[in-house]
């Protein structure tokens, strides 16, 4: 497999990463580089290992019972499974937004400050600034700035998803992972999330599992096609969606299966 990659230092590198649930392989020998200031779209049919791949990047995969990882994941050149790496700190550097928004049973403001308050040493003024900047970057500030003490569950589904994005942004992460963040959203909310992501790309690495090929081609700089746990093709998004090299990629994006 000869992939086109951007020159420069990769933020995240996966070397021969395989993942098993029990004896069942979910990912097979994945090699992938993720760069700063880019959006990588990982697409493929259901059960191809996309969510597992995301969860490996911030070690949420550790929570899976019977889960087993082979290979290595490097963040800024450092293996994230090294014993001296704090998994708690790793998860604040590599934040994740899930498909179904899960606001914690707290107020809107408390959802945003949840992550920062887990660590010590923040003044109220700093927190206020962080709440505003995070919500602004998630394109939600104008809608909620007057109702921060209200329960987060009072928000609409689209607003909840942007709140979950803001909650991750408040961690001030370097990498943002998004697992089908727009799957339950209407087109307008989807547009707002995508606009927020395009702006965030300026300062972050973003890995998204889009909910369809259209979204992958709209916002992806790079794209990776996963099929049955195998990385079929990886490269510049525009090229993958117009002139895929592998016939399986071609079949999938032209709608012959999946």
């Amino acid at each position, binding site marked *: 497999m000869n992939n086109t990659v951007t020159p420069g230092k990769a933020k995240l590198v996966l070397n021969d990463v395989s993942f098993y649930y029990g004896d069942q392989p979910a990912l097979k020998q994945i090699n992938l580089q993720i760069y700063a200031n880019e959006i990588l779209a990982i697409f493929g049919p259901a059960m191809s290992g996309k969510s597992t791949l995301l969860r490996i990047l*911030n070690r*949420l995969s550790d*929570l899976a019972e019977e889960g087993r990882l082979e290979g290595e994941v490097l963040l800024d050149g450092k293996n994230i499974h090294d014993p001296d790496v704090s998994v*708690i*700190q790793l*998860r*604040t550097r590599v*934040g*994740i937004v*899930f498909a*179904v928004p*899960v606001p*914690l*049973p*707290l107020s809107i403001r408390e959802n945003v400050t*949840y*992550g920062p308050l*887990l*660590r010590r040493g923040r003044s109220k003024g700093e927190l206020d600034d962080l709440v505003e900047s995070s919500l602004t970057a998630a394109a939600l500030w104008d809608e909620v700035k007057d109702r921060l003490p209200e*329960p*987060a*569950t009072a928000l609409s589904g689209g607003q909840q998803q942007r709140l979950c994005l803001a*909650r*991750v942004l408040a*961690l001030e992460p370097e990498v943002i992972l998004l697992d089908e963040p727009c799957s339950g959203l209407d087109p307008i909310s989807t547009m707002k999330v995508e606009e927020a992501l395009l702006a965030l790309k300026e300062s972050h690495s973003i890995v998204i599992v889009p909910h369809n090929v259209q979204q992958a081609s709209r916002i992806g700089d790079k794209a990776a096609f996963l099929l049955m746990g195998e990385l079929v093709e990886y490269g510049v998004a525009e090229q993958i969606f117009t002139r895929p090299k592998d016939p399986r990629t071609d079949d999938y994006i032209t709608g012959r299966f999946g």
Partner: protein
Amino acid sequence: MNVSRYTMQKVAFAIITTAAISVVIPLVLVIGYIVAQGIGALSWEFISAIPRNGMREGGIYPALVGTLWLTIGTAVTSIPLGVGAAIYLAEYAADSWFTRTIRLAIINLAGVPSVVYGLFGLGLFVIFLRFGMSILAGSLTLGIMTLPVIISTTEQALVAVPQSFRVVNASLGGTTWQGIRKVILPQALPGIMTGVILGLERAAGETAPILFTVAAFFLPRLPHSVFDQTMALPYHLFVISTQVPGMPIRIQYGTALVLMAFVLTMNLLATLIRRHYRRRRQW
């Protein structure tokens, strides 16, 4: 055939409705009978005076205070242990032979007859640890008896909190303990409190566990410390119902009424707490 299905449904419905109503009847009868027989004995003196004339006159104040102290003592001994064990089982423990053994122990603990707890308390706390017949020994005995109730209801309340909150906490860089303290425990609190109060309520009404560990036959004064004996309502009721000749019936039923009111008040409290928090619940 269709007609017979609907007929069957009506028959079944009639049977289960009758069953539901029948459940209420004994409760209404018991409460009604005790209230009717005991209400005449109730007065300020009855709940605020010490018993006189071989308990045939005066009040039940020392027994009421004793039961209150025993309930508090039971809470102090059983809540930290029970809630702690439940958090361990629900949030930390993986399924292993070790946790299966703990669970088995809890189930068996729940099945032990209360009089056996009384004997155990006598052997361990009163004699071996030399606490003597005391509020301390009685509270510890009642506390152990209450543990299974508190553990199982607390564990259920914790397990009922959505798993996704735990994942979100981890994904935001929270430790398991931070997630428990900031999200899981507050959400489970109403369920925990309900279970705790129901457990304490059972302890407050028990006679056998306090029989050999704390309860005094007749002690017309308040206890001085946790190492003191005390009268207690359930045992006092037993004594005046069976051990004292010439006991006025209305004093027996008046005592039963106060004990019942004590327990039902706790029950009501549990219900109110549950309702209050259910209105605030957000998922």
